[in-house]
């Protein structure tokens, strides 16, 4: 009982954190420096990586879906939901898989996650626009994801090292 409550609270706090991170990121968008639709640092992905490493895949999924739903309410854009959810779910799936591959660090996992997120976004945009036009943006987005993925990877290493698994001191 107390354990269930602890899990719920932990997931809620992480959802709020992910939401705050994605809103904060929206205040200073990378697209001002570099006009590429869909380009972002992916700070909210830190929470997904942390949840995957220190909680469970199920909790990571719940946090991700809650963050995307609440984020689209905050942003007031239902179409953004399609993009963030497709991208987020694909990134989560790829990272959950790669975390089980030996010989990788969180750098590689984050980069693959960022690349998967961009691929998912572009796939969603192709469905929304009904054509292959958005595919043109994928190569530059993939190259950018090498940088953004490495940055969030570095931060997530700090995060996972410094903040131990909750409830297990």
């Amino acid at each position: 009982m107390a354990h269930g409550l602890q899990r719920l609270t932990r997931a809620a706090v992480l959802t709020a954190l992910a939401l705050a991170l994605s809103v904060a990121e929206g205040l200073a968008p990378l697209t001002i420096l570099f006009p590429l639709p869909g380009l972002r640092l992916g700070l909210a992905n830190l929470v997904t990586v942390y949840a995957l490493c220190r909680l469970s895949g199920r909790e990571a999924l719940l946090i991700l879906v809650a963050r995307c739903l609440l984020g689209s309410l905050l942003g007031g854009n239902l179409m953004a939901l399609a993009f963030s959810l497709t991208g987020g779910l694909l990134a989560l799936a790829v990272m959950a898989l790669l975390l089980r591959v030996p010989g990788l660090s969180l750098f590689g996992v984050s980069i693959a996650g960022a690349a998967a997120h961009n691929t998912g976004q572009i796939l969603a945009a192709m469905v929304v626009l009904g054509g292959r036009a958005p595919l043109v943006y994928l190569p530059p987005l993939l190259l950018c994801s090498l940088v953004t993925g490495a940055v969030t990877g570095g931060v997530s290493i700090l995060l996972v090292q410094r903040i131990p698994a909750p409830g297990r001191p």
Partner: protein
Amino acid sequence: MRLSAADRRRPTLGDGLVVLVVAAAALLLLAALRPKGTDSLTATITLDGQVVAQYQLAELSQPVSLTLEQAPYPLTIQIEADGVSILHSACPSQDCVRTGRITQTGQQIICLPNRLVVSLTGAGDLEFDAVTG
């Protein structure tokens, strides 16, 4: 649950492999999508999947400015003999305006909030062999 990746502090050789795979995918896609140069450009403006206007750039003697009031966020497109740009748009992201001017076949301006695509194609040069959906 112990995950080896969660305990590493330094990048590994496997990470380099991931970087290589992503970079290779980007470059391959870039090569596959590379536009083939042609002289006569056609600008096609598509709103929500419907072609609303088409211009042969070479036939324009003076710039045309097209305002789409029917778009969710009204916007103005400037079509000139040597390129197309979006002058202003009421959309929140402004990515389409910041894209600037497109001048070559295969280039596009996309305004996602409006579901608008402005694309340049060369004469008789289909970008894709098939479009489904």
